[in-house]
């Protein structure tokens, strides 16, 4: 028993200790430079999207890796893979498959046991996987029903190429980065200092804020309210899934199912 056998040393590290500040500064400078070059007309506007994806999601993933004490080179690799995927994705519909790079890299690291601190790599039971898929499916179906009844938005399958590209982005960047950072890193660290409620509130609030500042989120009030509602629910549920299963996989699955449903929505 830990309380009996192990020395109980007071905590010394801060919540944001081990953050890779140098890499974050480089990413920020890169994004700012790209924005300036786009504004000056030197680069085409899609370059800003590539830089934004690389800097935003790369920062989240690299920070999550650093907090999990993975070697700094792994963070740089994932940033590079994200940049490559975003660039290739801009070239055409099949470029979405390039987004498989970051998750494959994460899977490789997890298989070698380097991401145990994020809740990746350890075996996860089928019950937990089904719970994650079920939670995502419940939220997704609720989203589909309520949006169709309130906003008149329905499932549309006539824009599959866009859906495929968005799904690739979710798998390789959006969901992967958000779950690794907000659940695997931030919530995990916070729950070692405070109660589940406080940690989940902190992680979920940060998660919602991250989407609210995302330039890709439509700015209509109905959509913002809906996004806050569903993202808060998804964030809280995923915190609980990680807490309950001790694995990030159910949360990843839950978020993927939810975002997949979200991507199929279209008006008209």
């Amino acid at each position, binding site marked *: *028993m*830990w*309380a*009996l*056998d*192990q*020395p*109980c*040393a007071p*905590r010394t590290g801060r919540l944001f200790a081990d953050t890779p500040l140098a890499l974050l500064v480089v990413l920020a400078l890169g994004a700012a430079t790209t924005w300036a070059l786009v504004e000056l007309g030197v680069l085409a506007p899609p370059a800003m999207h590539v830089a934004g994806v690389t800097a935003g999601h790369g920062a989240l993933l690299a920070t999550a890796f650093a907090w999990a004490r993975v070697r700094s080179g792994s963070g740089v690799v994932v940033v590079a893979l994200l940049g490559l995927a975003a660039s290739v994705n801009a070239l055409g519909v099949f470029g979405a498959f390039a987004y498989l790079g970051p998750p494959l890299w994460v899977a490789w690291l997890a298989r070698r046991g380097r991401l*145990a*601190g994020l*809740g990746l790599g*350890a075996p996860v039971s089928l019950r937990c996987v089904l719970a994650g898929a079920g939670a995502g499916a419940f939220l997704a179906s*609720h989203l589909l*029903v*309520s949006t169709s*009844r*309130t*906003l008149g938005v329905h499932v549309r399958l006539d824009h599959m190429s866009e859906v495929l590209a968005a799904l690739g982005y979710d798998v390789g960047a959006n969901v992967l980065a958000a779950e690794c950072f907000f659940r695997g890193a931030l919530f*995990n660290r916070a*729950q*070692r*200092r*405070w*109660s*589940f409620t406080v940690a989940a509130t902190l992680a979920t609030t940060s998660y919602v804020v991250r989407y609210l500042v995302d330039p890709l989120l439509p700015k209509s009030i109905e959509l913002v309210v809906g996004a806050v509602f569903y993202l808060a629910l998804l964030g809280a549920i995923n915190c609980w899934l*990680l*807490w309950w299963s*001790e*694995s990030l996989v159910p949360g990843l699955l839950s978020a993927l199912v939810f975002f997949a449903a979200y991507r199929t929505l279209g008006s008209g």
Partner: protein
Amino acid sequence: MAAGLAAVTALIALDGAGPASLFRHAYLVPVVMAALRFGAPGGALAAGAAVLLSAPFVLPEIERSGLTPDAAEGLVTFAVLGIVGALSGVLRTRVGRHRRRYETLVALQRALADEATLDVALTRLRAALAGRLGFDDLVLVARDGTGLVVAGGDRVAPGSLVARVLDSGIPELVWDAGSDVLSRRAFAAPLVAGGQAIGVLAVERKGEIPAEERAALEALGAHVGLALENARLASRQRLFAAELAEKVRAARQELEELDRVKSTFVAIASHELRTPLTALQGFSELLALRRLPPEEVSRLAGIMRREAKRLGRIVSDLLDLSRIERGLDPALCRIPLAVEPAIVATVDLFRQGTVTHPIAITCEPSLPRVDADPDALERILTNLLSNAIKYSPLGSVVRVGGRAVGGAVAIEVADAGRGIPAEALGRIFEPYYRAPDAAGTTHGTGIGLAVVKALVEAHGGAVRVESAPAIGTRVTVILPAFHGPVP
């Protein structure tokens, strides 16, 4: 519960009455059931799920027509579901906690109902608590003198949470226990008795240990501490009672033995007094009633004188014993006394009667004088010689002598008798005691050696006995030599 919620949602959809459908009240059934089954989390979750499921019926109405009466009813239903789910869940949780607390207290009392050592009591307590409190791990530690007794582990590591709480007496919660992917919570509360931390109750869980539960554990720590202290006191009281009963039994046995010994002594002493008295009475009547020749008168007078002396010696011994039993030293009148003449005079007394044993005297030349009471020395020698003669075979030699030992004189009386059994050697100086093999075969009061010891010690000397079965016994009396000028 999930099926119930889905069924109610389906009924509302089929009803087509929108947010005002009467079926919406049916959500209360699965919500209350979830609250009663799973407590506050179950009630809140079921209420949240019910609100989520009914939202697609209420929100479009607001979207289309604003806050109509139907939409308002739907919103009120949201609030009612939330309040009922949370409230009934919280009440269910609290009732469950109270019930568990009382059950735990009863289990705690049962665990300590029987007499048990501290480690057994702690193990029982741990078994009773572990199954009820719902933690992954539980340990009980209690102080036992200078050491610690641990139930649920081997030892308390220095600097561990348990060691810290044991030292400080203040409960402590650790959010991040262990090195798992997700942390465990560890909480340790002191076991308090008489304002002191007499131990620690420590628990661990993968999951929350809320403030209310921690407060309950603190209270439980006080209960356990008190129960342990009571058990310890009861155990001590039982031990004390057993010791007291043993002492009373031993004292009673001793008194009974003393009573028996005194009764035996009275019988023996009466017999010992009666023998010389009978002789005195008989010979004095003979002298009074008959006219006897002068030689016969002289012989009878000699016998009467010896018996009177014997009587006087017995009475003196009894008086000395009485003083010893009252804690007083025998009365002495000490003078510088030559040992050899005293030995010779006493031996002569024995030689005047019927000689059954030859008595050999061997004294060192120029033996120093002793600082002693002549009468006391005579009684010491008489008692020792009397015993030597009494307990050795007819005709065997009794040896008596004196020698200088340092600043003292050692007087030895040795016989070639049957000896004293080893188990009786330690008791022969006790008043009234007679060795078991001597009691039935020879006469004696059992006070002679007690008086010898008292008289010798009153002189500042010592007495020592060496005996070997079938070889004989040697008694050595050591008296301080006189170092002053001879008057």
